[in-house]
């Protein structure tokens, strides 16, 4: 199973004075089970791109293939596509509407035509994945805290059991604890269930830690599609795009300038710890 974008181009309000190109000839292929980080400056086309991947927006030209099937072709069942590619929008807690948490999470599976019991089973499972305790199931979603609401909203998408999960800045506006909990659940979904994840994020540290590959958008175009290490090697170019590399990458660069032989590709605290220890041990031996 793979998700493939081919020459995606999207123009908003074509033919008016307000015309603007949000995507320009974007092509890539994401293999099954990959954790992909999507980074880019505000207005670089990230949100437009992910809305094409589950067919919410129609491209002006180009198309998207899911397992080789063109999702914008005539006979393609959009509902099935949307159930297989789950999309969690920014601030998803604002789409909650039901009287209690469980009913809200059931909304997706019921739309897919499942019976009430089956939907409930999937809803409970999804709520467990995001780590919401059972005592909350019958409460109104509007009584919960911000982080809890967000987890309910993510469960609302997870309950449809998608194979690909796209999240648009799922940690925006959360405290560090809420952030770690959500990223932890996403990582678990990826490792334990083999879900393909596309994570839109502004935190280079987060994508360096979790992502197998990075998609870098700049000015409506796809600039890089490579492993985090390879992408962060271009940290000078990233800065021009209003982005940056993780702080550890800068540390590596500074250490090398000062004459220490550390791996220039280190990007997480864990890698830096290993490299620096190696350095000390090397000195001890020598």
């Amino acid at each position, binding site marked *: 199973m793979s998700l493939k974008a081919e020459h995606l181009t999207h123009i908003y309000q074509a033919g008016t004075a307000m015309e603007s190109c949000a995507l320009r000839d974007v092509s890539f292929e994401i293999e099954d089970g990959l954790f992909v980080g999507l980074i880019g400056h505000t207005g670089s086309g990230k949100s437009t791109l992910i809305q094409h991947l589950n067919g919410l927006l129609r491209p002006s030209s180009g198309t998207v293939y899911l397992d080789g099937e063109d999702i914008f072709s005539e006979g393609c069942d959009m509902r099935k596509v949307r159930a297989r590619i789950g999309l969690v929008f920014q601030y*998803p807690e604002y789409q909650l509407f039901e009287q209690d948490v469980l009913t809200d999470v059931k*909304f997706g599976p019921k739309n897919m035509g499942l019976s009430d019991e089956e939907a409930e089973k999937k809803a409970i499972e999804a709520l467990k994945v995001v780590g919401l305790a059972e005592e909350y199931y019958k409460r109104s979603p509007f009584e919960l805290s911000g982080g809890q609401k967000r987890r309910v909203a993510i469960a609302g*998408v997870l309950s449809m059991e998608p194979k690909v999960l796209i999240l648009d800045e799922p940690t925006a506006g959360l405290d560090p604890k809420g952030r770690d909990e959500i990223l932890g659940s996403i990582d678990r979904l990826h490792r334990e269930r083999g879900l393909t994840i596309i994570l839109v994020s502004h935190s280079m540290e987060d994508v360096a830690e979790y992502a197998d590959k990075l998609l870098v958008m700049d000015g409506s175009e796809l600039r890089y599609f490579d492993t985090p290490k390879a992408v962060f090697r271009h940290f000078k170019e990233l800065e021009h795009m209003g982005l940056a590399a993780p702080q550890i990458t800068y540390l590596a660069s500074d250490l090398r300038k000062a004459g220490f032989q550390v791996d220039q590709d280190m990007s997480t605290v864990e890698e830096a710890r290993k490299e620096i220890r190696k350095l000390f041990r090397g000195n001890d031996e020598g």
Partner: protein
Amino acid sequence: MLRDITIGQYYPAPSVLHRLDPRTKLAGTMLYLLSLFMTDSVVGYAIATVFLVSSIKLSKVPFRFIVKGLKAIIILLVLSVSFNLFLTPGEPLFEFGFIRITIEGIKTAGFMAIRLIYLVIGSSLMTLTTTPNALTDGLEKSLGFMKRFGVPVHEIAMMMSIALRFIPILVEETDKIMKAQTARGADFESGGLVKKAKAMVPLLVPLFLSAFRRAADLAMAMEARCYHGGEGRTRMRPLRYGCLDKKAYIILIIYFTAMALTNLLPW
């Protein structure tokens, strides 16, 4: 999808009409609308046509945008034209069973149609060339005299500009929520009336909540900046009539007089 809605949508262009003071445009539109109801002669409509067409040319707004506003009144247009066409008594031109079309009928129906179309085009030309904020500013200033009679002009204008400001925000919000629920398999298009109404619940509940939240936030922000109504408030860009406005008023007066005079013509 929803982004294409045009409720008094502004079309930015570098034109003379855009630069006019909003009060001039308001007065101009009022006079123009009035003039349409004053005249009943071919010459009058000819003058109105010349006036309208040259205004459109001056505004630099593409014709497509101007005609867009007409879509909303198509039903009204068809109804009023057919009523006038079939029900006006007079000399029959064409008779078939109970259908009777008179010469007078054709004439009134035609005039009615032109009048309606011109009305809509004229007023949408104003909203296309004036930002909503400039419009409310203009209204507030022109209606300022009503304060003496206890009408809270400033408060009404403020409410209007906030409402106008919130239209695009709420449209965008609706679009967002609709997309989010569509991603969860919601269907807003198919099904009968009851099903469609039910499908609106996942859209309306979050939309109302967000509107209330935004309203509360805005009230808080206004209070934090010491807003206390219109008393003693100055403006960042006070409205001032320029040379262009004087010329526009002269043209308007000439146009209006000409339209008034057409009634004296024998045909």
